[in-house]
């Protein structure tokens, strides 16, 4: 409703101003634009500075600007990849102008999007990195964030697993929070995403076609992000999608076809090794007279081979872009069909996008309409990765099939022929006898009006209305005979949720050069309103035979939050050298009580374009040098643990499995929730110092940044004094965390000739987070569980603890024998009190990498290009839960009356019982990965007189991993290696035709 109201109002404003068109121009200027070799540059733009008058060159590089007001004017010529050139002329009477443009490797004049506006790269005041389509990761990329993996210093993107379409953990500068969200804000074409999940799709971002994306802009320091206020503490990623073209329709078709193979399996004992081991324990029995030897099978089954497959994928995209009756448009469609490594796993996606960008009233009114729609269909083979865990530990001496009542899949039975309830289930049966189908639909888009006032072209009014709606539905069926739920006759469940997010924003921007005082003012002030709602529907659950098992208490529930914002920015530039910028944002969130609702997030930055100083102006070597200093505050209120209604004193209803019997009646009731009425913003203060540099006309360029972030009032779930609330843990504002780091990037165009080019990109980041307080009464000994392991119940391995890295492992110090073999159950008595108990545990390492490195290079010779992307993490540690859980004798010879397999690490330890908390299992997982190796052949124009061009690519993703870590993959989102859906090695052949 509000959106449409705003829309109406906005249109009204714009229509009103269109009435003020003034006509007083005469005279014209013409000329041509050439490249560095003197060849004409078609499509270069020319703009009369201080006005909206512009044009572009024709096929021969010629232009003409007519109807110009008399007097002196400055005309700027620009072209992508070239430095902008300005010339001053008088109207009328100017001779034909010739602009010869010089290539700009560093693209200092490129206009990049920033929060609520754009800026030329050279004038950026914050720590901002852009990555364009040319530099994206290549190959089979299903989700957008994967496009920039390893490309930006300080941005760590880890795909959660190898499942098709799966989401990624994105961390900019490590994340600033403990329990609230550490995800950056993602803004697509000015529309911020809500961060609420979409169920029955692999991930929310999997509903966005990467092929529609033009650029990523990553905002890192507070000067860049603070205008997004309360959602900016973890950085901001601005995604710009592709827009319309400039002339005749250009049709582009691309197809990528790939095969994914398992890159590495978990190293487990072979069937013969198990047989040898069991036979070596001939008397070992799980009960009187029942030996393990009698349980041995005769098969040689590699259970991982049984559940994994080579997976095919095809990704096809068609787009048409051009200008229709002067209106730029782009229409695109995509279809992806991707199998997963896990048998039966499948992800289908159809996407469509339309953008139209009419320009009215001689470009005074710019309208951008963008609509995107996606339908996905998934078959999820993956039931919480249980089949993967069981494939690791299932007895390799058993065959996959057997003649029985469980669908003829082998299962562990008891002596009486009934199912052993404590056995792992046959992993193949787990996948095959579970039918989980999900469908999701998403549509998002925005309509943006940017009006430059006729009587005051320096003033812009910008209205942006966006929406993002989605729906996910699914059903899961497990037949009654499936061993996984044999005792309950299988199950039939369904799910449905919808989300509805609305955005409306309005801002005014005034930009004015005042030549007399060599100053430029750029002022923005705006208002935003955001409404995010997700509705979860509840359904009856049935057994596979149709017997009703549980009924929900309520048909649905809505999680909704709103945000209301005012924001402003002032950028003052003196002499094109000194830039002072300040931003302010005021946010009010429905997640907090009225008294605490408003948060104010200021930032200020000073930028010195040293290159503009006289002593550097003429330098041949230095082409850019810029110093940036900034300070700012940002906020955080997001994340599932925070919830939408946590500040309210409320009672919640029991579920139908939580009733209580009094007399003969089972009663329903309400229970009070723990709550903190004073809940408020988590605030991060960031200090940043940066240096942008460029040498040799941008052949070498990059940036160096150092930062210090301090988060206070952490929204953390902490122990509160027991008896003060309806839980001993509460999400409240308590605690502090520090983040320190440095980032460095270097781009080097080593060779740039007509036939050969060789580019390098390198980035490095150091990041260290430290929890400094976790309690209302600061106490150095406090810690809060941050990650449990599999195996026992409730075994916590990771803690957030004072003076430690978040998620540090809390373990015993293993004692080794002379040969370096760990002694079972022997730990150091670190407090020397004569007893080894949990007081001797210590904090040892954390999953956070100390240093992350990215490297890419592309070498082109004529029509051939070979390129690669490498990434490395140093100092990240992993807890090897596969070995600690499965790699023990008591797991192989299981008291549950069965034989299991063990990880190969068992041969090192020979442990009998689990030693979960030994630091032996905390392993250095530093790694070097080659993400991508690609070869491209650009055939160029296929025929002499047509525009048809062709590009053929071959890619390999996940080429190799070098690491001392022996597990299946050293790169994990949570630092606990247990049942990772392995990331595949993917071979892709691609074809791109344009005409």
């Amino acid at each position: 409703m509000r959106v449409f109201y705003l829309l109406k109002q906005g249109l009204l404003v714009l229509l009103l101003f269109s009435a003020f068109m003034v006509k007083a121009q005469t005279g014209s200027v013409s000329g041509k634009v050439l490249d560095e070799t003197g060849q004409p540059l078609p499509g270069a733009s020319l703009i009369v500075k201080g006005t909206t008058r512009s044009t572009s060159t024709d096929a021969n590089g010629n232009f003409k600007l007519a109807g110009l007001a008399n007097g002196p004017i400055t005309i700027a010529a620009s072209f992508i990849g070239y430095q902008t050139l300005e010339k001053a002329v008088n109207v009328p009477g100017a001779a034909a102008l010739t602009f010869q443009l010089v290539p700009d490797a560093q693209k200092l004049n490129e206009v990049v999007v920033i929060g609520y506006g754009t800026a030329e790269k050279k004038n950026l005041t914050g720590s901002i990195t852009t990555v364009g389509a040319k530099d994206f990761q290549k190959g089979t990329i299903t989700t957008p964030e994967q496009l920039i993996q390893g490309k930006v210093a300080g941005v760590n993107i880890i795909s959660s697993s190898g499942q098709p379409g799966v989401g990624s953990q994105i961390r900019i500068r490590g994340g600033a929070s403990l329990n609230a969200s550490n995800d950056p804000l993602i803004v697509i074409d000015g529309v911020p995403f809500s961060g609420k999940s979409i169920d029955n799709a692999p991930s929310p971002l999997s509903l966005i076609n990467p092929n529609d994306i033009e650029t990523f802009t990553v905002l890192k320091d507070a000067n860049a992000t603070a205008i997004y206020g309360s959602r900016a503490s973890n950085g901001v990623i601005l995604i710009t999608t592709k827009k319309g073209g400039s002339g005749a329709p250009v049709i582009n078709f691309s197809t990528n076809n790939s095969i994914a193979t398992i890159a590495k399996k978990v190293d487990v004992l072979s069937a013969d090794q198990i047989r040898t081991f069991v036979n070596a324990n001939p008397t070992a029995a799980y009960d009187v007279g029942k030996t393990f030897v009698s349980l041995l099978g005769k098969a040689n089954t590699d259970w991982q081979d049984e559940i994994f497959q080579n997976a095919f994928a095809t990704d096809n995209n068609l787009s048409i872009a051009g200008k229709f009756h002067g209106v730029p448009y782009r229409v695109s469609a995509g279809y992806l069909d991707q199998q997963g490594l896990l048998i039966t796993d499948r992800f289908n996606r159809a996407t469509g996008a339309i953008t139209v960008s009419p320009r009215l009233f001689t470009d005074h009114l710019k309208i951008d309409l963008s609509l995107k729609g996606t339908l996905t269909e998934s078959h999820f083979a993956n039931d919480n990765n249980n089949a993967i865990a069981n494939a690791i530990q299932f007895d390799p001496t058993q065959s996959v099939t057997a003649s029985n009542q469980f669908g003829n899949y082998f299962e562990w039975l008891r002596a009486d022929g009934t199912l052993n309830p404590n056995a792992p289930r046959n992993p193949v049966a787990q996948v095959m006898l579970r039918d989980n189908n999900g469908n999701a639909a998403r549509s998002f888009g925005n309509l943006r009006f940017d009006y430059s006032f006729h009587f005051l072209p320096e003033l812009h009014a910008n209205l942006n209305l966006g929406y993002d709606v989605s729906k996910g539905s699914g059903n899961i069926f497990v037949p009654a005979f499936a061993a996984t739920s044999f005792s309950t006759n299988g199950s039939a469940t369904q799910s449905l949720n919808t989300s509805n997010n609305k955005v409306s924003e309005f801002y005014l921007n005034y930009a004015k050069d005042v030549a007399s005082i060599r100053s430029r003012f750029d002022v923005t002030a705006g208002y935003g309103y955001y409404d995010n709602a997700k509705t979860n529907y509840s359904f009856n659950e049935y057994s596979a035979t149709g017997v009703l098992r549980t009924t929900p208490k309520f048909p649905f529930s809505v999680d909704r939050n709103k945000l209301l914002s005012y924001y402003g920015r002032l950028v003052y530039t003196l002499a094109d050298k000194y830039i002072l910028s300040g931003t302010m944002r005021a946010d009010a969130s429905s997640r907090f009580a009225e008294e605490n609702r408003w948060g104010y997030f200021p930032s200020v930055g000073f930028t010195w374009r040293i290159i503009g100083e006289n002593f550097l102006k003429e330098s041949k070597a230095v082409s850019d040098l810029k110093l940036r200093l900034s300070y700012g505050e940002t906020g955080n209120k997001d994340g599932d643990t925070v919830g939408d209604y946590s500040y309210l004193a409320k009672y919640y209803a029991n579920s139908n499995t939580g009733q209580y019997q009094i007399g003969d009646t089972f009663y329903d009731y309400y229970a009070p929730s723990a709550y903190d009425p004073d809940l408020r913003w988590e605030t991060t203060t960031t200090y940043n110092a940066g240096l942008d540099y460029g040498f040799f006309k941008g052949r070498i360029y990059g940036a160096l940044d150092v930062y210090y972030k301090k988060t206070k009032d952490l929204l953390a779930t902490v122990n509160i004094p027991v008896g003060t609330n309806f839980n001993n843990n509460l999400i409240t504002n308590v605690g502090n965390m520090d983040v320190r780091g440095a980032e460095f990037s270097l781009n080097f165009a080593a060779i740039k000739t007509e036939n050969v080019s060789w580019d390098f990109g390198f980035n490095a980041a150091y990041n260290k987070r430290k929890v400094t307080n976790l309690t209302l009464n600061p106490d150095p000994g406090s810690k809060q569980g941050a990650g449990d392991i599999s195996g026992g119940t409730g075994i916590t391995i990771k803690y957030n603890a004072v003076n430690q890295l978040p998620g540090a492992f809390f373990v015993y110090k293993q004692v080794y024998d002379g040969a370096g073999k760990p002694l079972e159950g022997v730990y150091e008595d670190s407090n020397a009190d004569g007893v080894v108990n949990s007081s001797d545990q210590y904090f040892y390492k954390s999953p956070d990498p100390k240093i992350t490195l990215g490297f890419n290079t592309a070498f082109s010779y004529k029509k051939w290009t070979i390129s690669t992307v490498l990434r490395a993490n140093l100092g990240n540690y992993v807890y090897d839960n596969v070995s600690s859980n499965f790699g023990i004798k008591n797991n192989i010879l299981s008291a549950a009356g069965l034989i299991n397999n063990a990880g190969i690490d068992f041969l090192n330890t020979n442990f009998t019982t689990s030693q979960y908390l030994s630091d032996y299992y905390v392993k250095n997982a530093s790694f070097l990965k080659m993400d991508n190796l690609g070869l491209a052949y650009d055939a160029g124009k296929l025929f002499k007189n047509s525009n048809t061009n062709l590009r053929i690519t071959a890619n390999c993703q996940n080429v190799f991993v070098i690491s001392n870590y022996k597990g299946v993959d050293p790169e994990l989102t949570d630092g606990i290696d247990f049942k990772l859906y392995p990331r595949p090695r993917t071979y892709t052949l691609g074809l791109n035709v344009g005409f």
Partner: protein
Amino acid sequence: MKNSFKIILATTGLLLSLNACKKDALNLKPTNDVTADVVYATPAGYKQALVKLYATYSLTSPTGSDNSDIGGLNAGFADFFRLFWTSQELVTDEAICAWGDTGIPELDYATWNTDNQFLRGLYSKSILQITICNEFLRESTPEKLASRNITGADATAIQRYRAEARFLRAFQYWVLLDGFGNPPFVTEEDAIGKTNPKQIQRAALFAYVESELKAIEGDLADPRTNDYGRADKGADWSLLARLYLNAQVYTGTAKYTEAITYSTKVINAGYSLKANYKDLFLADNNLNNTENILTINYDGVKGTNYGGTTFLVNAAINADMSPASYGVPSGGWGGNRTRQNLPALFPDPNGTTDKRGIFFGTKSNVDDIGVFTDGLRVTKFKNVTSGGVTPASLNGTFSSLDFALFRLAEQYLIYGEAVMRGGSGGSTAQALTYVNNLRRRAYGNNSGDVSTLSVDFFLDERARELYWEAHRRTDLIRYGRFTGSTYLWPFKGGVKAGASLPAYRNLYPIPTADLIANPNLVQNTGY
């Protein structure tokens, strides 16, 4: 030009004024949750709120077995009874657990440290139930009732609910008094918020529990007249009797006479022993049961969690013991069994002579804690009715067996022990009658009758009658045998042969987490 500026201003103003409704726009409410005023709007609402007080000690969470309303502990561990049982049995000669979950081996050895997750869980859960009772008491004052137009018989009924809320609070304070000694202390006077609770000393807490139980006596229903599952005068007296029996430990002053007084009240209140001992621990123990005084109720479909009797039944058997015959076809977790001491108290471990000895297995010595079949399994609790029927269960694991927090047999034994310890108001002859009532049920005839009694006899007889019913630690402490080296059992003190424990371990520590969170708290001596 001037006009157009006005238009800009006006329009901008209009756009911004769209926020006029912002105050309300940002006040969002959850779909299905409600406020206290809705919960307590009607007399029926008060009844439901009362049920919630009881549900708190049965369930891990109102929203099912996967959730927990205490933090920092796995939901499967987080119900009151499992935690209470663990604190009372696992640390003694009556039980031992095979699992390596954090904190369990240390409880097996009775060498827990100050952040043992189970002890912290018990402490947190007990105080949670107290906090919820306090909330009920705040919402049910005469003023609140009047403001909600609840009068007459409805108001009288709610007066009784209040007494029950105070009983449940007193019960949990007794749990804390017995286990932790000096816990934080909150009543209905302490609103929800951030004021750190003060610590109460053990003797003062004893006095508080005593005075509360006496103060509410008149408002509680007469014995055996209340709904099943709700506390009555019988429960009140039973807890007083238990409190007085242990007064010497709690305060340094013995109150055996009072223990006799109150156990006598219970004994004379119309309760009678159930004919077959084993039927007390079957899934239909809620029917025709004249022995149980107050139960925690469980249901395999409607009120489920992985603690309570689900834990008692499943943890005591493994897959090889035919879980279906214990009413848990998908269960059998293979954890708990007894050390050799308990079966040794019986004439035979097969239940042939004394039918109370309900054990499974052949190897009574525990050599390896991690081997479930080391030590006899206690199969006293079965999720099967006396007619052999298994109740409905959501997953073939959840049990519908109720657990008696108080039953008549305990009161017989309190009476006898208090008489032997010199309390007045009772007689040895009467004590002998009560004890032999229990033994005749156990033996099926008078062949097991005893003719003399002693203080020590009661420690063993309590073990035989009440084993695995969450009494053992309290009993051993009362007899001075829990710590020190007077009595050793396998793995006591972490040594297979058994080792002495320091006296400070008669109390559990205040959990480290709460010591840090609440600066008013001082750690118990010795930790």
